[in-house]
């Protein structure tokens, strides 16, 4: 930073502190709403949902063998296998959004081709484990499942459309594959890893159950004992350390932005007029879904921040359909990501991809709002 910029920033801060109308109701209300929502998240969602979810994501990153999945996205895989695998593999391969683009480019240029690559690109961020779990915890499991299923279906449709429109592309990239098999095999059976993940999921869901406290305590202790058993008696020390490190890495990457997002979401409730939200996206019409879809396509949400923001928009009267639509495009597209896509895919392919996603997300939200 240049000295002058620092000076300008300090002066700006000074002027804000000097003149800010901190007693005006809109300011005090906004701050209060932001803090209230932060407290709500801290009390209801951090310990019982986010912490277990981060541990689960960390465990997936360390213990789940990614090579096998990756091989199924190679250039020689049958298409009817590649598409479904691509649409679910985001949850396993891309625990963090920073790994999505290299994987997408790899599948696109050296692997199963443009269709599965597009399917992966779209669902990768959308079926992030922590995001689905937080959605369920905050907005209800119907939303979490709706989001998951809609994202998977749309991703396959979008992939097929892209593959049909740009048929010529795939012939070029059959000669090479990609490097797999070098991850250093972990000596644990698949069953162990699956039980380990399920136990953790059990803890997360167990916390949220409204059952007798005694039974709940018993269930949770049983799950935790199971986890401890695997950690102590089965897993090696180094792998456990890796698990903790991976989890901590995710927490560092996501939590600060989430807290900021929660605060902003609280403010939204105060500064955006209810009539405005209700008028634009209150009903479940095709138009309101299209509005939500387009808004989500341009807007950037840091990982997980879409949850508190959509929660508060729904509080202001946003319909269920448009809310689901916003989940679908909000996660997968943003202005910055569009720019990158134009660079990697070229103008024509990127435009077709973006338009397809926006339209099908609109349709999915509309159907969700209508039938669920």
């Amino acid at each position: 930073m240049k000295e002058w910029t620092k000076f300008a920033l300090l002066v700006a801060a000074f002027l804000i502190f000097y003149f800010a109308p901190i007693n005006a109701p809109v300011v005090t209300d906004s701050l209060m709403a932001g803090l209230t929502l932060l407290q709500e998240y801290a009390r209801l969602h951090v310990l019982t949902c986010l912490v277990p979810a981060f541990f689960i994501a960390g465990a997936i990153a360390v213990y789940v063998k990614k090579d096998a999945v990756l091989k199924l996205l190679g250039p020689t895989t049958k298409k009817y296998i590649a598409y479904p695998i691509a649409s679910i593999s985001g949850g396993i391969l891309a625990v963090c959004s920073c790994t999505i683009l290299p994987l997408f480019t790899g599948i696109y240029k050296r692997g199963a081709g443009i269709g599965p690559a597009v399917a992966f690109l779209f669902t990768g961020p959308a079926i992030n484990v922590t995001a689905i779990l937080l959605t369920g915890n905050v907005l209800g499991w119907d939303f979490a499942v709706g989001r998951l299923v809609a994202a998977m279906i749309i991703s396959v449709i979008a992939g097929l459309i892209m593959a049909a429109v740009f048929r010529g592309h795939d012939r070029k990239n059959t000669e090479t594959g990609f490097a797999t098999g070098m991850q250093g095999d972990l000596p644990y059976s698949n069953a162990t890893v699956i039980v380990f993940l399920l136990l953790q999921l059990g803890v997360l869901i167990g916390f949220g159950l409204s059952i007798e406290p005694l039974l709940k305590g018993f269930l949770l202790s049983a799950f935790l004992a199971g986890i401890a058993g695997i950690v102590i008696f089965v897993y090696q020390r180094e792998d456990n350390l890796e698990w903790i490190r991976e989890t901590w890495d995710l927490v560092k990457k996501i939590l600060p932005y989430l807290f900021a997002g929660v605060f902003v979401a609280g403010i939204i409730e105060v500064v955006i007029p209810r009539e405005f939200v209700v008028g634009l996206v209150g009903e479940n019409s095709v138009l309101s879904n299209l509005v939500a879809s387009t808004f989500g396509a341009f807007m950037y949400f840091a990982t997980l921040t879409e949850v508190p923001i959509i929660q508060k928009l729904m509080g202001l009267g946003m319909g269920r359909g448009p809310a689901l639509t916003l989940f679908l495009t909000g996660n997968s597209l943003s202005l910055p990501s569009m720019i990158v896509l134009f660079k990697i895919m070229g103008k024509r392919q990127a435009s077709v991809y973006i338009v397809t996603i926006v339209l099908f997300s609109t349709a999915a939200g509309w159907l969700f709002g209508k039938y669920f």
Partner: protein
Amino acid sequence: MKTVLVLGTGYSKCKVLEQRLLALKQEHGLEFDLAKVTDLESILSHGIMMTPGLVIDGKVRSVGTVPRDAQLIQWLKEDLQ
């Protein structure tokens, strides 16, 4: 002098791998050039899609993880003969 490549678009784990390699180099008195590859196309040209990737003397050794020190030193000793 043989080359060791760390491939990654520059997020935290790539840096960790780089630091470990440098530490091992010092500790064991190894001789190699360490280079970083950050360009997506060049990373892919090695067939690597999950970063950090590690390429020792032209051979892809690990993908998507930071291997343990013991493993790293074994590879380095094997490949740098």
